[in-house]
């Protein structure tokens, strides 16, 4: 026994070392990419960053504005992504609960539903954009906050639903059985036990979908439109940060291009703030989770 182990130990240690180098290198690449992206955005946005970027709508000549700010896109993006996330949540939570409490793991409906959700997850956002555009025309809507919200909700739905579903699948059957054994209906078990136990995962799913929604340009390109004004109703067109970046970078004027990086910095900041707020909230909802 010992003889075998001893003869092999050199090779095992080399494999261990090799894997450690590989793992460290991967971590370094990820970290470096993040630092480079954030660094580039911040560095390039410094000349254009000012308080007025956050508080004003575009002004002062040039297409998309040489002066003023991107308040139109900040608010447009927030309205749109929040609305879309709420809509996606209203679909995702019931469906995830249905798949986990009302259907057995092997039921054909559950298997196929999960498969379709996975396919939807993989559909590129420009396809959602095009689809949203067609539906919008068919309904007689024009490019608007509402049409954008519906399209982004469609984009977010499979992401959120599958994320929530995966967390609910990890909830032990014994836990939902314990609730059932006390005479709870499935709905009571869903609302009072499953949702609480899965709360941290539900929050993660919502944040993931929100981040995807607020950062997506292609789905809102045809559906939300773009405008210098802050939208005041659902039927107004709405500017969004990803499209602001896209249009600003596409102009031939260096002053406006600089502002694209400022827009990118703002978008990154918005996502960062929401994620941090979500995590703070997450600590509250994990209090009662059973390990």
């Amino acid at each position, binding site marked *: 026994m010992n003889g075998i182990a001893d003869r092999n130990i050199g090779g095992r240690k080399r494999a261990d070392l090799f894997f450690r180098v590989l793992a460290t290198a991967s971590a370094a690449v990820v970290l470096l990419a993040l630092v480079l992206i954030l660094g580039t955005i911040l560095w390039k946005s410094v000349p254009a960053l000012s308080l007025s970027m956050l508080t004003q709508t575009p002004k002062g000549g040039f297409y998309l504005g040489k002066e003023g700010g991107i308040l139109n896109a900040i608010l447009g993006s927030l309205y749109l992504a929040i609305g879309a996330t709420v809509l996606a949540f209203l679909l995702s939570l019931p469906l995830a609960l249905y798949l986990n409490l009302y259907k057995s793991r092997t039921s054909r409906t559950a298997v196929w539903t999960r498969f379709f959700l996975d396919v939807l997850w993989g559909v590129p956002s420009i396809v959602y954009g095009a689809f949203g555009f067609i539906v919008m025309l068919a309904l007689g809507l024009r490019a608007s906050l509402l049409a954008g919200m519906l399209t982004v909700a469609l984009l977010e739905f499979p992401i959120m639903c599958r994320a929530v579903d995966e967390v609910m699948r990890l909830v032990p059957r014994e836990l939902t059985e314990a609730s059932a054994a006390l005479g709870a209906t499935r709905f009571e078990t869903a609302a009072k036990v499953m949702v609480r136990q899965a709360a941290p995962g539900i929050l993660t799913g919502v944040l993931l979908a929100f981040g995807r929604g607020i950062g997506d340009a292609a789905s809102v390109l045809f559906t939300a439109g773009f405008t210098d004004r802050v939208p005041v109703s659902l039927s107004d067109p709405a500017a969004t940060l990803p499209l602001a970046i896209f249009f600003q970078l596409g102009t031939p004027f260096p002053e406006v291009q600089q502002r694209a990086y400022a827009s990118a910095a703002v978008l990154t900041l918005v996502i960062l703030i929401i994620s941090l707020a979500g995590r703070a909230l997450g600590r509250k909802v994990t209090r*009662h989770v059973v390990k």
Partner: protein
Amino acid sequence: MNGPSPISIRNLSVFYGDLQVLKDVNLDIPAKKITVIIGPSGCGKTTLLKSLNRLLDTAEGARISGQVLLDGEDIYAPRTEVTRIRKKMGLLSQRPQVLPMSIHDNVAYGPRIHGLRSKKDVDRRVEHYLKVAGLWEEVKDRLHEPASGLSVGQQQRLCLARGLAVEPEIILGDEPTSALDPPSSQNVERRLMELKQDYTVVVVTHILRQARRIADYLAFLYLGELIEHGPAAEVFANPKHPRTRAYLTGEIS
């Protein structure tokens, strides 16, 4: 036996797919005694227990034939309300499963879903059943802390209090001490001995010594068949079936 038996199992068979896990089981559970179902792992003990409160309904692909009569009513009849059946029985599972809420709310969960509203009534009931389960003194100052912070032994007694709080007639225990340390196991056993004054208790175990300690009535299950059943003292002292004898002497396990 005192009075009619609260649970009568008639020709009960259970299949998972093509596998038959219970074969034509017939058993009357005596009232206000501890009935212990023993048998080796995989003999269908847990399946039998779960068929009593229809938890098998949630199992994947279980098919059930035969009858389980609860106070004379067939619980598998199509019109039977399953939540009402389950309310009549408290379940202790192998590993305690506390609900993701506070200690207080774990016990209050059942009474609340069954319509107990007033805070005073809920609090009174929570206190009462935590006392019955022998947990009150340990938790009375931290009722609103997460139940998951309790030790495993405390969690199992919390589950007992939670089960009792819906005021069932029957307590089902599925190897209720198998995840507990010896003192906690003893504590739970002691509770069950006290509770048989007021409740009919059915416990599944593979620990023979435990069966000897607590059983009034004994049922021996082997490969899905009910081999022998009778008053515990009789079966232990004088098993009629050779298989029961072999199991009790440790020749098969």
